[in-house]
């Protein structure tokens, strides 16, 4: 018997409600803020996101499904939501500086960051195809607008257009896959789909077909090869803080959706999707890293590196053991810190009349801004997976999990790629230390920006030296998914 969601359900939705009410107030209130006080709006957005984070605290360690089984509040969802909200907060923090330089209106920008966050939260919690789909689209549509936010800038226009065309195309593929999944299972609930998939009636080809479409549709969102072609152009053209939010928040939420779909809906078909994801992971790592080597634009370089990192994260999902999933979660969190930190430095280099994206603009940064160069060094080391950073620890776990599950070759490909990637990360460092200073222009950095960068750098180091806390948290989150039930050899009849 289905009933209208009650007040108790609403209490579980507290974080989402906080965020929604906050963004609505901001949208209307923003009209009354004078143009020269736009940073007040950014502050307000920051406060609302903080309140959302606080509303998430009581949900830690709970595991319930509410609102007629469409919405789950469990450790996994909370883990992803924390990443999404923190990413949004860092995005706002780094945007403040950028908004003044570009001279664009802040209200809609802040509101869109918040709606995208709401979409991510719904994706993380959705245990129903409809809910997941609507969450995904709320996030995606917000991003289409944000990527094209710099209207007079043609690169921003084109980036928005490319992202839109490929994004809606992937939506079409995804919705077709969801339609088939619903049709074969007779329900949109993940739990019911799992039951139906365990004893499939009718054609197994059709089940595989549906899974393939779902993986392809989400492959676009996580920018895994061969669905990655939009990423470099979009990251390059998009406003830098948005590129960073896109590469972290969107990716984390899409991974959450992928993990939940694969593990909770199709545990019985694991051999099918594992082999598909195996190929995706191997291709993403290799193609991403090789393509990154020749890039001279730092945003494009980070885009290719993010493609490679999507490959690393997928390794944990291929392993599909509790250890593998928790390693994926850890790596998503670690990647969020490294990537956002690196992008924050690119944002900081953006000054009036200076794009600050090309590698040669980093020349001599070590002399102009030693602390910033040092932070960048930390991010590069971490992205390359060198100890003592969190990047190293995360990769260790991922490759270990792969070996545990018998995917030795995947681990080998991963290690080889990590070695490969050091080359282009080192290139960035070389530019900062080894080349003479190109520009004498002052490089002012807002205190908020400096704080954000320092925090990210500190997180990367601390995560590398004392990783236990993060691992424990990720493990308990992964347990919420019940991945233990996935035995390595189980396949669809």
């Amino acid at each position: 018997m289905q009933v209208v969601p009650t007040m108790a359900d609403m209490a579980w939705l507290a974080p989402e409600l906080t965020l929604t009410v906050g963004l609505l107030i901001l949208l209307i209130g923003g009209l009354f803020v004078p143009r020269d006080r736009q940073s007040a709006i950014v502050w307000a957005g920051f406060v609302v996101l903080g309140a959302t984070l606080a509303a998430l605290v009581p949900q830690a360690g709970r595991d319930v499904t509410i609102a007629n089984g469409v919405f789950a509040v469990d450790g996994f969802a909370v883990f992803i939501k924390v990443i999404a909200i923190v990413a949004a907060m860092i995005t706002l923090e780094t945007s403040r500086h950028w908004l003044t330089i570009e001279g664009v209106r802040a209200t809609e920008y802040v509101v869109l960051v918040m709606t995208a966050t709401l979409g991510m939260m719904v994706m993380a919690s959705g245990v129903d195809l409809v809910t997941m789909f609507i969450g995904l689209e709320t996030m995606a549509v917000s991003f289409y607008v944000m990527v094209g936010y710099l209207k007079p800038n043609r690169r921003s226009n084109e980036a928005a257009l490319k992202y839109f065309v490929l994004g809606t195309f992937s939506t079409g593929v995804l919705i077709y896959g969801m339609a088939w999944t619903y049709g074969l299972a007779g329900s949109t609930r993940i739990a019911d789909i799992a039951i139906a998939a365990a004893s499939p009636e009718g054609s197994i080809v059709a089940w595989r077909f549906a899974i393939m479409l779902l993986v392809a549709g989400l492959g676009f969102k996580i920018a895994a090869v061969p669905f990655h072609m939009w990423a470099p152009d979009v990251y390059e053209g998009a406003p830098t803080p948005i590129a960073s939010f896109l590469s972290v928040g969107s990716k984390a939420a899409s991974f959450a959706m992928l993990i939940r779909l694969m593990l909770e809906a199709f545990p019985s078909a694991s051999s099918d999707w594992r082999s598909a994801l195996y190929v995706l992971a191997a291709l993403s790592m290799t193609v991403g890293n090789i393509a990154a080597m020749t890039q001279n634009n730092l945003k494009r370089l980070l885009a290719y590196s993010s493609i490679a990192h999507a490959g690393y994260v997928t390794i944990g999902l291929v392993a599909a053991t509790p250890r593998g999933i928790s390693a994926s979660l850890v790596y998503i969190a670690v990647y969020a810190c490294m990537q956002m930190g690196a992008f924050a430095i690119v944002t900081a280099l953006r000054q009036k009349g200076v794009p600050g994206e090309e590698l040669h603009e980093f020349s001599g940064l070590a002399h102009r801004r030693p602390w910033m160069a040092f932070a960048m060094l930390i991010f590069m080391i971490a992205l390359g997976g060198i100890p003592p950073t969190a990047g190293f620890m995360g990769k260790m776990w991922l490759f270990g999990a792969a070996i545990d599950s018998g995917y030795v070759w995947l681990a080998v490909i991963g290690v080889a790629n990590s070695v490969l990637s050091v080359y282009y990360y080192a290139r960035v460092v070389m530019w900062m230390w080894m080349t003479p200073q190109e520009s004498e222009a002052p490089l002012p950095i807002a205190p908020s920006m400096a704080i954000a960068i320092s925090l990210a750098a500190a997180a990367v180091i601390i995560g590398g030296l004392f990783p236990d806390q993060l691992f424990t948290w990720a493990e308990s989150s992964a347990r919420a998914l019940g991945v233990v039930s996935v035995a390595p050899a189980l396949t669809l009849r």
Partner: protein
Amino acid sequence: MGTAIAFYILAALILTGGVLVITAKSAVHSVVWLVGTIIAIAALYVVQHAEFLAVIQVLVYAGGIVVLYLFVVMLVNLKRPAEAIVHPQRRERTGLLLGGALLAQFAAVAFYAFNSPQVGTAATYSARGNVEAVARALYVEYLVPFEVASVLLLVAMVGAIVLARRDA
């Protein structure tokens, strides 16, 4: 029998319309064919006893979304320039090849999956009609996604204004 006739007529209309949408020379003609296809699909929903969805299809799709397309086509396409195709052969060959392969695959899946005809139609799933059944599902079962969808539409509204507004 009646269903069969309706099916074949509508299938012919929908597929012809679809092909014309992607082959029409002028974007305005494409829009017109799209409207035709959408109305035929609405008729198909009526045959499948999804009356509410059929009306919404016409109202939202034909009456809203496609009008928007028509507006934009007219705003950006007044001079009706010939569509410049840079590498026609290559593109069309890849497209057709890929499309043909997919068509074969899809058709195979569709037929294999349901070769045992489990005929299940002609039902409103509720004593009081399709509209009420849909409303109940929408406001009870799927209340949370429904509310999120309202945020989605708000985003679309804000986004469209942000992108299309001429800044002073």
